């Protein structure tokens, strides 16, 4: 192979509540292991804390004012310009590109096709069990099934005996196996649905976070001098059966403290569940002998407020809503080739292996943005990074409004 493959992993609504970002509560051993062999950007920010605009922005490397995608009802190729996406760029460079799970926001904002065939060599895969995500499948205290926010389940009792991210992992592994012996390089994007609400997750992950160990956000009240326009009333969680029962006042709440603790417990458990899927995926990459010529990118579309400022959502400009994890594993660069052992990413089952320790060797503290991802991934994979856009670039199909961070991989951080 002349070029590096790319495994591009995205979580949904994941703030940097991860061990590798210094969080002492969250258990994320597999992402921490990836971070220990990656360059980790500690201060990365999304351009808008909403799925469709953020993903369109990151994947085209244009800011929302250039994509003109601010909601769920616009497709950038119709709305603003025929911009080239990150996967499209790889596809046009000879890569086989595939999307598993949620990479583009589905629906209107990706032309009901996840931007296929522009971006992908084959139609995007969506896990069939996602169909049930908003159905009455969560057992309530009354023993009946509800559409709840808090929805830890026995997976064997769910339709099909599975959950969306489990299915996405299986499909991604299946694709990796089918490509393991191909000569053509691949760009595989895997978008996990968690820790996005509802917290429909395997119930065993809750046991990692005993409720008596949970704490409230350090600043759980709406700040006194916050302008009302800056506040979001987190309407999406208010519609869930279990939250409706709380009779929380609109728009400021608050949510009762015991329920706040349970939301935080479920979010952290959802992170650990998603981490396990990342671990399954990376250990398969490893087992197939692909870890030494595949770069791995891990990030999220935006963050989520876990009670900070009295909010329970993204939908704002607060750091907790806009900050995301970002790391790049580039074999031979973020880890010397002679340190690539037989097993680079052994799966760590946090349910049975609670003790682990990793150290981040390469971190960058300077502020970066998700619009930087496109030129950086292209460059680190061995392709030419797009040129910087002109001030007005609606007619330019290929350019970037971000910075190519490739130079940061070899130079010491300044300032």
């Amino acid at each position, binding site marked *: 192979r002349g070029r590096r493959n790319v495994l591009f992993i995205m979580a949904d609504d994941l703030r940097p509540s991860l061990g590798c970002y210094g969080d002492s509560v969250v258990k994320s051993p597999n992402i921490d292991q990836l971070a220990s062999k990656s360059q980790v950007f500690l*201060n*990365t*920010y*999304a*351009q*808008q*804390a*909403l799925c469709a605009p953020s993903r369109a922005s990151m994947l085209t490397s244009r*800011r*929302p*004012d250039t994509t*003109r995608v*601010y*909601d*769920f*009802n*616009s497709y950038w190729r119709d709305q603003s310009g025929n911009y080239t996406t990150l996967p499209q760029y790889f596809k046009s460079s000879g890569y086989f590109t595939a999307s598993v799970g949620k990479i583009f926001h589905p629906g209107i904002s990706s032309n009901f096709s996840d931007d296929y065939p522009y971006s992908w060599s084959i139609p995007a895969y969506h896990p069939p069990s996602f169909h049930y995500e908003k159905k009455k499948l969560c057992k309530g205290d009354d023993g009946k099934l509800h559409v709840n926010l808090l929805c830890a389940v026995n997976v064997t009792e769910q339709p099909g005996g599975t959950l969306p991210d489990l299915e996405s992992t299986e499909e991604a592994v299946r694709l990796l196996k089918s490509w393991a012996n191909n000569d053509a390089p691949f760009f595989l994007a895997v978008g996990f649905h968690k820790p996005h609400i509802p917290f429909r997750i395997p119930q065993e992950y809750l046991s990692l976070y005993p409720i008596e160990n949970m704490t409230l956000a*350090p*600043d759980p009240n709406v*700040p006194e*001098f*916050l*302008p*009302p*326009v*800056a*506040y*979001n*009333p*987190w*309407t*999406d969680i208010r519609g869930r059966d279990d939250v409706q029962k709380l009779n929380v006042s*609109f*728009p*400021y709440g608050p949510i009762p403290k015991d329920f706040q603790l349970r939301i935080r417990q479920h979010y952290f458990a959802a992170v650990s569940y998603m981490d396990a899927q990342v671990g399954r995926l990376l250990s398969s990459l490893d087992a197939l002998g692909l870890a030494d010529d595949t770069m791995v990118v891990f990030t999220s579309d935006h963050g989520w407020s876990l009670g*900070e*400022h009295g909010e329970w*959502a993204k*939908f*704002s*400009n*607060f*750091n907790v809503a*806009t900050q995301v994890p970002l790391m790049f594993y580039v074999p031979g660069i973020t880890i010397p080739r002679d340190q690539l052992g037989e097993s680079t990413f052994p799966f760590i089952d946090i349910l049975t292996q609670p003790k682990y320790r990793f150290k981040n060797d390469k971190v960058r*503290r*300077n*502020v*970066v*943005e998700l619009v930087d991802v496109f030129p950086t991934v292209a460059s680190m994979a061995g392709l030419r990074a797009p040129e910087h856009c002109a001030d007005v670039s609606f007619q330019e199909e290929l350019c970037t409004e971000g910075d190519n961070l490739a130079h940061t991989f070899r130079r010491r951080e*300044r*300032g």
Partner: protein
Amino acid sequence: KDEEAIAYSQYPRPADTPQVNSDVPDLKDVKVMGYSLRSWDYRYTLWLGYNPKTFQVNVSDVHAGELYILADDPGEDKNIYSDLEQSVVIKKLSTLP
């Protein structure tokens, strides 16, 4: 290379006060856009009038502002925009593209 690293974000709102569509307003309902710039040291946000038909922001139509000094206030809980509204810092930041 010596320039300060800045990250930009933005968020649309349909009104100056929270209402049912404040979280995810349809484009046609957007009246205000909150533009943020953040560095290692601070987050500065201006909420400006916005026309969704022309996609134009009115930089002289300031609905609100936020300024958080992150070294003192990492959780962004003490908005000091009003305290420093007339200061040199704000004037300088307001002239950024």
